């Protein structure tokens, strides 16, 4: 696979190649959304040309912001009829090039579909519109002692529509699972204009023979446009203990991760920061006094106070026996926040110290953590690209962040090459290309290598059933998905 094949659409930095919407279509969109907005000026569109991969730009021809679900449905039907490619976008926080107009057309922004329609504490589910911000749902649930565990780091901004589209994860997935484990039902408008509900509060198939919602969760906006979800809720943990342990080397940290993974206390989170990440934090105004050169492991156990309290000493012992040079832990909310602080500030610091950064996402069997980290260091150092690692170690979910300047072509190409090297190694080890960010257009080129030709053909069959012309979010997941 050549470097140049890694991006499957030519990014457009300027408006030069942009095709404005035909005036009559623009007018009809405006009429369709009496309470919504249509953005067409260059200045307005600039804010929609990238997602969390800030250095790849795909400027849309227009942005439609429906004011409510009915307007969203009407706009989708109109765009579908007019054969205009379109991409649904929530908060645009995806990290895979998922919510960008890779083939131009219209971005449909769902930010105004933000109603939490129902929180049913008896049935343990919530009904939400697709543009509800995850953090808002979380606040509403906390008041009722309910819990929706998926917690991507963009939780304060990201929408549930984006979470379901990417099958988002987060820190507490090791025990609680990812978004897909909590989706009971989805409602979507299809390209033929039909509104379908797959599942519902019961979380089964509903009036369908097959469980189609399984295909829609994680479909990255390529099969239909989400309007609302039924989400499973669970009781909020009564008590949480956070542990932070430092290790002198990757082998001892890795030993602790393996033992935690098999511990009956089933930690909710097992996170690891590497020494380069620790150095980044300690060299910043956000320094928390971590020993330089160390691997920092964060883990949490939660549940009823009587049960969790009984497990604290065994977790501490485990962490120390694996070779920890220091172990701190607490169940006090303020102190827990301090233990997490270095982990929480790492993402923001990357943006401050580097013009650009790319956070990759891949999952490997946990036994290979040390080996793969070694490979990442060796390849990044050889390419002269700084890399920091802070990731969901319990899941084997790597997130190496490459820091670079996208204005320097050689650095940009080096980062593409590093991503390629990582994905190749991940496939060799029996891992997978994405744990929680999705494929988007950033990793579409690796799909055939990963799936094989038959596996890929099976996958494309799904797209063919719902979106045969690839009008919806073209050039995502598979490079062949070009709207014609």
């Amino acid at each position, binding site marked *: 696979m050549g470097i140049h094949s890694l991006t499957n659409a030519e990014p457009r930095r300027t408006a030069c190649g942009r095709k404005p919407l035909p005036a009559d279509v623009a007018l009809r969109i405006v009429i369709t959304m009496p309470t919504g907005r249509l953005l067409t000026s260059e200045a307005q569109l600039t804010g929609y040309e990238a997602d969390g991969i800030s250095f790849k730009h795909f400027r849309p021809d227009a942005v439609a912001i429906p004011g409510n679900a009915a307007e969203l449905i009407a706009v989708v039907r109109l765009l579908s009829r007019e054969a205009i490619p379109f991409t649904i976008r929530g908060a645009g926080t995806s990290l895979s090039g998922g919510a960008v107009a890779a083939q131009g057309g219209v971005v449909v922004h769902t930010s105004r579909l933000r109603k939490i329609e129902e929180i049913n504490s008896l049935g*343990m589910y919530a009904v939400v519109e697709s543009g509800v911000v995850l953090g808002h749902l979380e606040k509403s649930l906390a008041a009722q002692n309910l819990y929706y565990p998926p917690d991507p780091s963009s939780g304060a901004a990201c929408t549930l529509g984006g979470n379901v589209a990417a099958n988002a994860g987060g820190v507490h997935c090791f025990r609680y699972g990812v978004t897909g484990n909590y989706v009971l039902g989805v409602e979507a408008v299809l390209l033929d204009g039909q509104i379908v509900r797959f599942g519902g509060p*019961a979380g089964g198939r509903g009036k369908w023979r097959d469980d189609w919602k399984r295909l829609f969760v*994680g479909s990255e906006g390529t099969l239909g446009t989400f309007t609302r979800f039924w989400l499973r809720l669970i009781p909020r943990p009564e008590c949480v203990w956070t542990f932070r342990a430092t290790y002198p080397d990757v082998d001892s940290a890795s030993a602790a991760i393996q033992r935690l993974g098999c511990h009956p206390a089933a930690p909710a989170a097992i996170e690891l920061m590497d020494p380069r990440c620790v150095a980044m934090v300690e060299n910043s105004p956000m320094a928390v006094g971590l020993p330089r050169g160390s691997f920092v492991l964060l883990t949490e156990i939660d549940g009823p106070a009587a*049960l969790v309290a009984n497990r604290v000493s065994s977790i501490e012992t485990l962490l120390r026996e694996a070779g920890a040079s220091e172990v701190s832990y607490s169940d006090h909310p303020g102190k827990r926040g301090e233990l997490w602080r270095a982990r929480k500030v790492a993402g923001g610091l990357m943006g401050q110290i580097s013009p650009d950064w790319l956070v990759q996402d891949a999952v490997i069997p946990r*036994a290979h953590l040390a080996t793969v980290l070694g490979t990442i260091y060796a390849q990044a150092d050889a390419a002269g690209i700084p890399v920091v690692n802070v990731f969901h170690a319990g899941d084997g979910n790597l997130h190496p962040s490459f820091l670079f300047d996208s204005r320097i072509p050689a650095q940009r190409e080096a980062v593409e090459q590093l991503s390629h090297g990582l994905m190749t190694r991940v496939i060799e080890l029996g891992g997978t290309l994405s744990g929680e960010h999705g494929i988007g257009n950033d990793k579409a080129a690796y799909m055939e290598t990963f799936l094989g030709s038959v*596996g890929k053909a099976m996958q494309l069959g799904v797209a063919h059933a719902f979106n045969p012309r690839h009008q919806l979010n073209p050039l995502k997941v598979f490079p062949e998905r070009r709207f014609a």
Partner: protein
Amino acid sequence: MKTDSDRSRLFQPFIDATDMVMCCPADALLGDIQQEAAGHGLRFPLVCDPAWSLQAHVSAVDYAPASSRFGPYVDNVLGMNWELPSGRVVRVGERVIKSTTGYDLLRFLLHSDGRYGRARDYVLRLRPLGGGRMSATLGGDEESLDRVRSALLSTSWIHWIDAVTLYVMQSGAAVLHVDTDCAAGEEAIFEGHLDAVRREAGLTKEARSGVHPDGLPALSVKTTVPAAKGIARRLVEENGGTAAVLCMNGVVHYFPPAGRRPVSFEGRLAEQCEADGGHLMGPWAEPFRASAHEMMWSTTLETTWKNL
């Protein structure tokens, strides 16, 4: 039999105690799987009857009693070797516990009832075997049982309890069975909590065990949590037998008396469940007639896949 040209992609039988995953043939008996996993200090918790194969479980039910803590089969089967109708075997899914790579064919195909092929091997997510066990059967009046059930489900204790199963029996009586695997030494903590909840509701602990019927249910009903008990009662009142309500999941496993087959009840039941986004499955669930729209999607998949 044709196989994927990239044979190396197919899963081979293995057990990985570090990552807590194993690959086993689809027709492996759950009892054998348990034995194999236990040798590594692990377990696969979703068992209805250890004498039946995993494939038989997946055909008849999508939840097991321990789904209360671990979720349905689709959350505990990570990958499969899948035989397409053409005879070609392809890999679907992963051997890691987390993935959002492409469309989720694994979860779609797992309970697809043979329409698009069949599983030959499963990759399973295993869990630590704690070394301790707490198991109790509670008897009493229905209101008291409801209070205990509700108390157990509404706090984070439920995250740590394998199963909270209400058995509704032909006699009209009901018992609540609570069961969990836990770390050695934690049994007393679980028992203490259960005793406190039980005493407050005025329930007695029964000496009997083994209330779960042998075999797999004839009918599995997926509905909402609040609706499950009522459906269980109706099934038993109208048809006899025993119904097991998996309280946390809104699932009813119905075990009819030998030789009994319901006639008219099922249609109404299916309508009620489907309205809530639920469904019926198992040998007693009548074949589902897909709508024209669904047939179009299914046919597209079948046509694409049959030529692979």
